[in-house]
């Protein structure tokens, strides 16, 4: 390339008389375009069918439009009210609320609004339902008095503070809930000890994933080492034992573990049969954290062995031999020479196993009981049972951030181009 830059006054020409530089950059542009055209269909497909849905869902974690949309007049009326005082809002705010509620009842929005606000302060759900029934009978002057007579909660400034606090179109309430915190007038504060749940669940998800990763490394290492040492023919045969679980359906493996770990299952039966435990003292290995850890270690083990093996294959045996000939014993040779060279393999496998583990849903759901479930199970619960989609989105966003950080680390350590399968 350097000679192209040199003779500036006499450009090198191609056969058809164009400057070589221009011609080359045109070819480069064409090449880029060609590559891009090949990539574009999949890129568009992934963006539309995968990335867009996820972004769309994550936006729910800050969406609060239901409050200003259902109570537009109340939100305006409350602008003048100072939430710091212990005074209740004036009559116009109550009148606006009753008018908003009447419309909400007609569109059946008031119960949904109640559920939304109930996430921030309990009691709103029933308050909205009762008030929805009451507004039909309220008329004339002193709306304030009538509404308070219908439900005394409207005489509580705290209810109004919450309303005012959550009157914007966006909210950080869901993210705060996902971190066991809540918004108050004086800023963010943590929930009382007894009501915290998500930080503990995140912590448990991380701890259990870490345990699973460590177990995988611990039992994957010897096998990868053996496979890397054995002659190709033998190791290929043994490799099938690693690849078979890798290729077997996740549900098949989970059902196998369910069959094995039950109290009336194969393992307990065997232990009773050989007399290690009595029939009345069967081990509880399922519907708890133990079940999740055993089953997931088995399921994720191949993801540790395969990268480890591919790194170990590249370690030349001559280093170990050299160390031994210099007087090192087997252990020293392994520990000082071989092991450090295999660390990248452990890193690659560990990050991969960890990434996969923290997002697991099916296996904890089936064998985890209540103490062996992950944050994913909680997300599913909020989507299909409690219907708190905003919180599900916030929890999902936090989980996704964790995974993306790990993915970034993985990319730096191993490189996504170097992911190998099978």
């Amino acid at each position: 390339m350097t000679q192209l830059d040199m003779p500036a006054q006499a450009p090198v020409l191609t056969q058809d008389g164009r400057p070589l530089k221009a011609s080359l950059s045109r070819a480069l542009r064409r090449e880029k375009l060609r590559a891009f055209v090949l990539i574009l269909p999949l890129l568009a497909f992934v963006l539309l069918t995968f990335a867009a849905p996820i972004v769309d869902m994550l936006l729910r974690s800050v969406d609060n439009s239901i409050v200003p949309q259902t109570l537009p007049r109340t939100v305006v009326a409350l602008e003048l009210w100072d939430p710091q005082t212990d005074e209740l809002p004036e009559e116009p705010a109550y009148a606006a609320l009753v008018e908003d509620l009447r419309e909400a009842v007609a569109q059946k929005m008031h119960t949904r609004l109640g559920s939304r606000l109930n996430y921030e302060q309990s009691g709103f759900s029933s308050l909205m339902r009762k008030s929805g029934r009451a507004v039909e009978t309220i008329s004339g002057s002193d709306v304030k008095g009538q509404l308070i007579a219908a439900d005394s909660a409207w005489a509580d400034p705290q209810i109004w503070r919450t309303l005012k606090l959550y009157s914007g179109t966006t909210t950080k309430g869901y993210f705060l809930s996902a971190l066991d915190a809540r918004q108050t007038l004086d800023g963010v504060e943590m929930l009382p000890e007894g009501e915290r749940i998500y930080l503990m669940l995140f912590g448990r998800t991380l701890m259990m994933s870490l345990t699973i990763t460590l177990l995988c490394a611990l039992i994957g290492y010897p096998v990868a080492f053996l496979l890397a040492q054995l002659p190709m023919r033998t190791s290929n045969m043994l490799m099938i034992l690693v690849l078979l679980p890798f290729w077997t359906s996740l549900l098949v493996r989970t059902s196998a573990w369910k069959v094995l770990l039950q109290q009336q299952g194969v393992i307990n039966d065997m232990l009773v049969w050989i007399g290690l435990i009595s029939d009345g003292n069967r081990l509880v290995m399922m519907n708890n954290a133990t079940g999740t850890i055993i089953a997931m270690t088995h399921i994720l083990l191949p993801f540790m062995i395969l990268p480890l093996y591919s790194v170990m294959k590249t370690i030349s045996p001559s280093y170990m031999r050299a160390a031994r000939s210099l007087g090192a014993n087997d252990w020293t040779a392994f520990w000082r020479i071989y092991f450090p060279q295999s660390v990248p393999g452990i890193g690659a496998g560990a990050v991969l196993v960890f990434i996969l583990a923290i997002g697991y849903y099916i296996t904890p759901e089936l064998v985890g009981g209540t103490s062996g479930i992950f944050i994913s199970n909680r997300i599913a619960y909020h989507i299909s049972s409690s219907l708190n989609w905003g919180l599900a989105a916030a929890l999902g966003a936090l989980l996704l951030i964790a995974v993306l950080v790990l993915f970034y680390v993985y990319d730096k350590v191993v490189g996504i181009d170097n992911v190998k399968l099978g």
Partner: protein
Amino acid sequence: MKLATTLLATAALSLTSISVQAADLTIVSWGGAYSASQNNAYHKPFMAMKSGVNIINDESSNEAVAKLRAMNEAGNVTWDIVDVEGPDSQRLCDEGLAMEIDPAEWLAKAPDGTEAYVDFGPSMINKCFIPQIVFSTTFGYRTDVKEWNGAVPTSLCDIFDTAKFPGKRSLEKRPKKNIEWALLCDGVAKDDLYKVMSKPEGIQQALAKLDTIKKDVIWWSAGAETPQRLADGEAVIGSTYNGRLFSVIEEQKQPVAMLWDWQVFDFDGWIIPAGVKEDKLPLIKEYIQFATDTQRLADQAKYISYGPARASSQPLVGKHADLGIDMAPHMPTNPANQKNYLVNNIEWWADNQDEVEAAFQVWLAK
């Protein structure tokens, strides 16, 4: 995002419009033995009567509220008729996700000419709900537990007696019913139940009582789990719907028996999703009229031990279709079975569900 949505929607529409025909009726229900009983009592005779109508069974009733809300939000309702429990119908009706129906227009009169809403009586719990059956949630236990030394549980509170009746309990992973049962066994009288529960201390009292057996509980979220655990011996006592226990006892002949003490009555029935396609309505109405008439409701009891919601169907309940046994003693409404009972307090739970559920989930995760 907007553009993408429009583009995809257009593409999707062109793909899907071909496959849906007007004569398809998508009916959502619970699956398992319950769906089978509906299939035998309602779907098959209806399809035999109306040739060209094809009923598609969807077993998503468990997630019905979530899915209906998503469909409603998207403005794309793909279900025609949905089977839900009473409390869910209340929520769907409150949120405008279910259609309000006029009983005079939608439901057939009793054979003697009694108006439908009179015949259905107290089971018509809200303006959207079309009742089918009365069911109850109650307990079943294994009859061959060695550690019990021949004793069998006779009262609800034996559930909490782990000394006399050791072994795993299978309870629903929801506060409803568990809270009531715990309080009843903690000395609260039936009449005070919801008064106590309305105070936060009441819920804490119930959870404290449940704490005494927490380590012995395996939680369930699908009705078939308890019968399965009882049959496998994974649990020795468990709560579930009475029809599921009937099937494990009488049809599968497992060593399991019923404990009817303090069973909780509930209704189950149909709702029509709001926003269902206009041109489907006549067919939906025809199906509902057919499937909830006096004879059809009585027919369902031939396949599963749930009581028909119509008064006029009661005398028609006969024998089990395959086993030939008399179904009446297995009905939750049989006088011998309802010495102590509760009726699900839909109103209270609708008002307090969110709070209690949150407290229960925190307790559960500890």
